[in-house]
């Protein structure tokens, strides 16, 4: 697995300190980007939190996921969360070390007492003393939040004080981006009130499920999620229930739980799902992969966007027009870019795969953020895409009408397109039937069809 390293340089460690009017939560920032380009130690927000304890619990939940590894849980996760200022809200995001769980805490405008935030995305330092202090927050303590260094404080002349060197596996970065693309296909499946949510989450097993079979939950009247052994239309998939454990911390502050998932057919294979705990003025959302052992990185949603020929150029254009909006309005963007809505959507999907856009299932809308990592590298070195490029470049693809023949290692695979969906005769496609994106043969055919590579002479039409 390819891994690059990243160094985060914070001016000092984040801390929760006593202040003149309650606690002062100083979250330190490093790196990232804003409307005016790359950032050093940006300041995003300063103001009181409307609900200190739920906010602290939500923040800890996000930090828990960043530090977690649900599959083979011996090794710890690695990274600090990412925060995005969208003007009217702050979004704290993290991704588990096993690439299977995405967590996001949205502190909405009510949660920030209406104060505005700066625009941009950056890393925030979370350290052990801070975690302790957040856990120990009393019931009535007011809390002043500052995201970014204190401009008033005298900064030490020696430069950055807290340096964190973190490894950045490619598949982790890819998975972080792909979550957004998958979530865009989710719909609301169930809504539970606080008591029902507590009852449901309490009933889940806490121990490791060791990659056992995914369970399906069918919303029944009365806020009950009925477990079934098999997918039925309207059901949501819950793979590895212990991965919802991070919600438990914030459960007692919750006002409800909403469950999202893609549409499924009877007997469908496991799919991803999103679990949103509503907190006063905040939302805490966990997105789970289809299996504990399956990271988002291999889901191949990024590869589907290659189907649209103009997506790459459109994405580039759209990327310039975005300015950290909390909600990206497709119609408005279409007008500004001069593209039609379908192309804007495809372009946004493409941006999602490189982590340049997030998807908020609660509002069913994209929002702008830029992951403060080198996402391009991870995307370029996508194993399936790389293999497809090799196949196409080696001239292994022959086109015959709707069928493409790919000669890979002496075996000929046939890629067939029917109603816009690709099928292939390779064992991988046979196993997942397109459930994890196109296979490398299908991708190679796409690349050739788009003219990025020449097909073998003779068969091309």
């Amino acid at each position, binding site marked *: 697995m390819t891994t690059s390293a990243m160094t985060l340089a914070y001016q000092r460690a984040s801390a929760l300190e006593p202040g003149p009017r309650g606690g002062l939560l100083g979250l330190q920032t490093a790196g990232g980007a804003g409307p005016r380009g790359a950032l050093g130690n940006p300041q995003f927000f300063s103001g009181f939190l409307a609900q200190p304890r739920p906010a602290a619990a939500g923040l800890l939940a996000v930090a828990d996921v960043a530090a977690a590894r649900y599959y083979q849980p011996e090794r710890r996760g690695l990274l600090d969360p990412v925060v995005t200022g969208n003007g009217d809200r702050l979004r704290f995001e993290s991704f588990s070390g096993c690439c299977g769980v995405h967590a996001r805490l949205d502190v909405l405008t009510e949660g920030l007492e209406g104060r505005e935030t700066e625009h941009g995305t950056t890393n925030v330092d979370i350290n052990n003393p801070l975690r302790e202090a957040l*856990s120990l927050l009393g019931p009535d303590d007011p809390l002043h939040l500052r995201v970014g260094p204190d401009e008033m404080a005298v900064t030490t002349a020696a430069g950055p004080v807290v340096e964190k060197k973190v490894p950045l596996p490619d598949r982790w970065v890819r998975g972080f981006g792909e979550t957004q693309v998958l979530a865009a296909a989710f719909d609301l499946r169930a809504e539970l009130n606080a008591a029902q949510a507590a*009852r449901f989450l309490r009933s889940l097993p806490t121990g490791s499920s060791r990659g056992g079979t995914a369970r399906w939950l069918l919303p*029944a009247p009365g806020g009950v999620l009925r477990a079934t052994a098999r997918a*039925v239309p309207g059901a949501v998939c819950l793979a590895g229930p212990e991965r919802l454990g991070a919600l438990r911390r914030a459960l007692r502050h919750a006002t409800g739980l909403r469950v999202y998932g893609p549409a499924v057919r009877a007997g469908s294979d496991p799919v991803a799902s999103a679990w949103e705990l509503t907190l006063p003025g905040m939302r805490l959302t966990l997105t789970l992969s289809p299996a504990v052992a399956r990271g988002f990185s291999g889901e191949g949603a990024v590869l589907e966007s290659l189907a649209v020929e103009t997506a790459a150029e459109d994405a580039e254009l759209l990327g310039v027009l975005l300015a950290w909006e909390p909600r990206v309005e497709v119609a408005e963007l279409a007008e500004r870019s001069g593209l039609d809505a379908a192309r804007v959507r495809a372009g946004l999907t493409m941006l999602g795969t490189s982590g340049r856009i997030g998807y908020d299932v609660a509002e069913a809308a994209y929002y702008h953020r830029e992951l403060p990592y080198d996402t391009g590298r991870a995307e370029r070195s996508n194993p399936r895409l790389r293999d497809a490029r090799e196949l196409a470049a080696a001239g292994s693809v022959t086109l015959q009408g709707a069928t493409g023949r790919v000669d890979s290692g002496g075996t000929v695979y046939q890629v067939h397109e029917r109603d816009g969906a690709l099928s292939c005769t390779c064992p991988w496609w046979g196993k997942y039937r397109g459930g994890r994106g196109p296979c490398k043969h299908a991708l190679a055919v796409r690349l050739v069809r788009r003219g990025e590579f020449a097909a073998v002479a003779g068969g091309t039409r």
Partner: protein
Amino acid sequence: MKTATTPGGREFARERLLAAVREGKPHEVVVRLRMLDDADRRACLPVLKQLRENLRQGRPGEFRGQPRLALVVAGAGCQTGAAALVSWLLARDLRGFGPLPVDWILGAMGHRDPQWLTDVAHRLAGHSATAVENHDLIRALLDRSGGPLPDGDEFVRGWVVSQAVGLRMRPDDSLVDRLRADPLTRALVPRLVAVSGVSRELAWTGSDSWTLALPALAGEGVLDRAELLGALIGALVRGGRPAALRPFLEMLRRLAPSDRESKEHLAAWAALAADGPSTVAAYAQEKAGELAATGDLDAARLADVSAAVLCRNEKKLVRTQLGLLDRAMRRNRADVPLLLPVMGTVFGHEDEALAERAVKLVVKQLKHADPACREELAAAAVVLAPALRARLAEVLELPDAVDGEGAEADLLPPPPAPEPLGAPATDPAGIAAEVAALMAGGRSVADFERAVDALVRAAHQDREALAAALTPVLRRQWWAEHPEYVLRHTRIGIAVAAVTGHVGAAEMRLAEQNERHNASLYASVDKVYTARMCEIAWAVIDGLPLPFLLATPDWSDGTLEPATLIDRLAAYATAGRTPAPVDFGQALLRVRTDTITQQDLTAALALRTAEGVRLAEWLARGGLPGRSAERRTGRIASRGHYWAARRDEAPVTRFTLGASTELRRHFPPALAVLGHSYDPFTSGIFWHTGRIEYACAVLPYTPETVAVWRLAGLARDVETDGRLSLGELRALAEAPGSVGPVVHLMLAHALGARHAEDRLGAADALLVLAARGVLDPETLGADLADLIARGTVKITRLTDTLGNAARTGAWGTVWSVLAVVLPQLLASEQQWTGLGGLLTVAADCAERCRPAAGPRGLDAYADRSGGSQAVRQARRLRAALGG
């Protein structure tokens, strides 16, 4: 030894050093290095690098002794940059197994200044892979340089590991002594708790464990007690896996914080009781309770902690917290308005007894409550079970519940609706992809039938094109080169191999001959599919491929509309083709007979073919005539399996199946074999098919027959605590034919399966039957009572399944089954394990669905003395029935 000064002397000294490396004598390298100054050492470096390269390439004859070690030591003396030195020391090609030799390396670096040595030590400590094993070298470097300790976790980890090395071999040495003597102990112990990856060392038990040593040292004053206490509590607050936290909790217990110390960490106890793992939370709860008793924990904070603890699902924690609140309220009546509202949190708890305890507390203390408190409780009472709600309603003067008194209707899932099969692929490449997916395994009947249909149609239209597309797919199958295995190992593969020409008439004949003598019931259902594929293959080989199949179902459950079949037969007649016998036979078994009209019969007769007449007769008779299935209890003769021998001594219940004359007389052999009678007590064949869904699609209208075959294996799996196949019960419950006692007996077994996933499947099947309106509670209940009495079904497992089904809203359905099961259990003198749980489910159901009468023997049982859960729940059930 002095360094050489003359040019000749220096040259000589350098040569001696390199010779020592080639000789592989690290101790001599150290000695030779002392004769060289910095410039000389630098001059040696290129040669050392060259030697390293030579060593890597494994040149024979150049080296002797331990050249790798000698090179490492020589490099340690000659490298001048700290970073270069560390990468030399840790180089994979130079390093053997185990730590670096401390004395030699220190000897080689004897002349370096302290700052440089500290730098090297810190760099070594920064490498996570080697910091632990080279801990002694790092320590030695730091000792010599006197520099500060490294910040990283790896250094601490190395320290922990090194403390324990060799302890077992030296009885005079102990961990406490070592730690006491080690000057770093005081500095490193507080850091220790924040380091991940040492939990295994810390969790050691026995006289030399860390959990004993650290509290002992704190007692002696070697460690700062307050600091250690703070560090341990901080580690627990940060959280982690319970196993990693266990040593910290153990140490905390041993330290036994005093009241004064405990008071300082009040916020931590509150946070831990709320969010810690259950063992930690229990300890924190105890501490918080002590503080509440002394008045250090004020009522507002206690209410806050309680709200969080009562939210947890550990019954013990909730129970303890309720006791704590009770004592607090009795101690100070003025606190009641603050504390009483949190009781509402428990009202929704799964454990009825806890909710009851909370209600009792509320009733007792309500006279001290204020109106706001009463209001909050009234709002929370909505989630209470009806009986408890009524109790609370009395004292709170709640309005009568609007819907609470009446019976609630059952919420059942919608009855299963079969989906249309969908259009087959037409393009050869598309068909090849479907076929490849089928060969990869695990697809549904609908996928299979659709792919076969597509294959047959395409083979009829353009066999060449299809063969070209299928050949690469077939090439991946191991049996493609061994046609004699085709029949035995493949299903759709037979047809594919015929289309591509991999098998011809000779191979088919040979393969069929091998199969023919094996005409037993074993895998009989699977063989129907094989026979259909053989028909397709033969038609292709004979050059007369079938235009399409008659038996392809219209619906995903394997059923076929009469009109479709008549149309297909008409097309065959027009084309002058005779239907293939197994294909036609299968089509008859699949055709729907419950909705036929006179028009259908007329149309079938109007075909004027033998098949048309047969179809008309078949439809008019209502399909396959029923066959006898007889319930029998007896012993199955042991077949010598050691694991089954004990079970075989006990009598079991199975069904025997009568023969079907219709199938045996009027269907081709592959289907006729299904008409044989079957007696699981004598047959010994439990295996008729790999996947029950496929069996249901062969005989969609007689799930009872399929169930008789499958029951033999499934019941045995339940009796021996084995795994069931998840899909099979659902497939049977959803089958369009009528279900009866056999499916019910199968369900009764599955409801008590050992594995939770299997029970989930059983609950699904129960709800599907109920939703279809074909569940017979009397039969199921009687079967369950029988299986419980025989010990096959454990009550605790049944409680779990039925509880899950009931909680989704199927209260009435579950009650109807329990009403039959309970009388036998209540009347028995036996002490049933888990009866209390089952009665709880029954009471939950009865409170919601308000049945007219209770099970026989309930009164007598409820009147028994004692306060066991079973008796208490029996009383609750009686109350629910009476109310």
